[in-house]
């Protein structure tokens, strides 16, 4: 019994400690075109880091603040002033750390065809129309954010 538990914990730690590679497609409705980016997601105990190599840009999400690193500068951002980053961090936590509770403040959560659907509350509904994601075991199949201006972002794990 202990062996199974030990193996499970070890595999989870291994999975979370390993960087997750993903591909992001951002569709811009106004221009009817998409932009593609590759990124790396690192999940540590006390922070989450997202790195966009092509842009030389990374976000490090700590519990009480965010650090935005670019080629030129390093900036500390507040969660309360960057709602979209705050929501994004919670989405990642929810997906990879199974912390769904935190999302309930922002969304009504429903499950449909193995997908999880998040319908935003009144406040976020001015920006986000809905969010869908599908996770098999600990792997993210896709995470799609639909914005009210008909733009959308689709993130797919590639490793």
């Amino acid at each position, binding site marked *: 019994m202990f062996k199974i538990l030990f193996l499970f914990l070890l595999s989870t730690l291994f999975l979370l400690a390993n960087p997750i590679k993903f591909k992001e497609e951002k569709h*811009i409705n*106004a*221009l009817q075109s998409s932009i593609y980016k590759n990124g790396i997601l690192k999940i540590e105990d006390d922070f989450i880091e997202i790195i966009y190599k092509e842009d030389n840009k990374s976000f490090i999400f700590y519990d009480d603040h965010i650090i935005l690193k670019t080629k030129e500068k390093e900036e500390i951002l507040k969660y*309360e002033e960057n709602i*979209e980053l705050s929501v994004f961090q919670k989405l990642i936590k929810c997906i990879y750390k199974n912390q769904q509770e935190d999302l309930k*403040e922002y969304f009504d959560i429903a499950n449909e065809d193995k997908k999880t659907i998040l319908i935003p509350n*009144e*406040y976020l509904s*001015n920006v986000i129309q809905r969010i869908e994601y599908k996770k098999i075991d600990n792997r993210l199949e896709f995470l799609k954010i639909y*914005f009210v201006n008909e733009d959308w972002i689709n993130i797919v794990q590639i490793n």
Partner: protein
Amino acid sequence: MFKLINYINGFILALLVILVIYFDSFKAISTQLQSILPNSEQKELLQKFNEFQSTKKVLLFVNGLEKESLEKIKTIENELLKIDGLKQEKNQINKNLQKYKEDYKFYIEEINTENLQNSNINSKLQQLKDNLLNSDFAYFFDKNDPLNLLEVNEVSRKFSLKEGHLIIKDLGYLSIFNIDSSINSISQYENLYDLIQNKITQNENIKLFSPIFYFVENSRIIKNDASQISIIATLFLLLLYIIILRNIKLLFNTIMTLASSILLSLLICSFIFEELSIFVIVFGISISTVAVDYMFHHYVHNHYKEKKEFRKDVFLGMFTTVGAFFIISFISFELIKQICYFAIISLLFSYIQFTFLYPRIGFIQKNIKNISYKSFIKISPVFIILLSVILIVISTKQLNFDSNLKNLDVENKNLNQLEKFFNEKLTNQDNIPILIKGNSIDSLIENSKILKNKYPDALIPLSILVSEKEFLEKKEFLEKSKITQVKSELIKKSLDFGFRENFFEKAYIYNIEKPIYSKEYISSLGLEILNYKDYFISYANVPKIKAEEFFKYDFVENLSLKTIFENNVVSIEKELIFYGFLTIIFIISIIVLFTKKNYLISFSYIIFPFSLILSLSFFMNFNILHLFMLFIILSISIDYGIYMGSSNISQDAHRGILYSLLSTFAGFGVLIFSNINALFSLGIVSTTGILAITFLLLILKRQKNDSKSI
């Protein structure tokens, strides 16, 4: 042997108790400061203002932005939401208002004519495209105004969101609760207040405030203080009567008479006045003790044992006091009117009982304790009058009038601090509420706009709407402007920058029907207006430092108690002087007519207390209650003037006066121990007056046939 007359006082009291309970007279007693304001349009508007939902909020703040603070505020929220009548205000944006703002965007916002004339569409489109491509998430812009031709006023807010919860930036978590609109009465407020306080223990990190807390807390502070004072006065009086009278039968009857006089006054006044200030009740209880004089004088002169002549001096004392109250009652000031009516009824009732009923009941005079004193100095009344005149002249120069009614109220430091905290943290300035009036909804909107244009810092909810006149003017301006031409160019050029066809089709549409407002429509937009008489009212919060400028507009009503009170005092200033003067003439006439050659002695009893009370102006500002009490003390001291001015003054008269003074102090003087400025003001004046009369008893040169000791 059973004699009905012995129990008549008890029957009268029982009957009055039944009547007071039956008509629920206590219901008329109000602890609110407004109840002492004269009935006026401003007072009604002040009451109307309290109907606005904006005044019915409960604010909860938990210090710190850590997880623990969030958990703490959520726990408290859950507890508070269990209370009926409390609903949490979510960060909901009123959809109807949002739509209205979108539809009438070009009528609400100003168009930057310079941008419109020189709009560089190419550079704007390039900038838009760059932002869309380079944003980390989605890029949002106003599709109605992609070229930013409108001047949108950004309001700097102190609120924000963290973890999906409202916060005060860099400070802590905030929750706003709405109190159900059906909760309007003081008893409902009290119930809600108790339920809330039972759920929460406030400390430095947890703050809770609602404007309704003032109603409950101040009312309770006043009630507690008033009860304490009444208990002290009653005990003091009981002790005094037991020591002096040593006649249990008389003591019980006197207490019954006083209680009956208070109940009768309350009963009649509750029919006359819609609201009776609690100050009137406390004052009324005190004034009822003045009537004990009538009993003392009859009793010490053995009127309750033997059949004697009618006591003219007692009648004259009563007549002067009641007469003075009667004259003053013509002043159109609610509190003064209420007190005068209460006093007249109470004094007349007691006088009738003490003069006509008590001799019939019959009381045997017990061995009354003798109090001996020798007058060690004899000062002539002329000297006293001269000294008084000098004091009056000096004091009048020193006299400052404090017209701030709030200074009569309870100083609730704790709530004041909490209110200040939320005021400072939620808005960028110290605001005060005002009312805006209009003959129609449209004129109400126009008036709101006038203020908003002049004072952009003011928070005027209705100013967001477009009046009919403004709509027509803007429409004409838009039709003449080159906005349609700019739109065609935008659509054409956007294709060159790779924008989707027809993407800007919905931009710059301003052709819309003029808005038609109704009370229901305004309410659906989440805004508040109320009907008052023939017009409509709404509210605004304006910067305190500019308040005076606002009040120059005739459609703005000031809600400050201080101003309402000042206006009333100004309006009754002439009356106050006229009736005050009339009272003094009345008192002097009585002295001259009835004390004949001893009028100087009697006059000393009027002018000396008057001058000593006025000299209080060296130590404090005078308020309306000081002035009022001054006239009352004059009307009471005339009693002593009459007794002392009588040519056949006896040892009994001295004794009567001394007991009366002690009794008056027990009734009125104890008010000096009150923590409420209103009652303290009455107490300090009466105590000074009583001390002045006592002083005169000791030092004033007396009549030849006056006994030197009692």
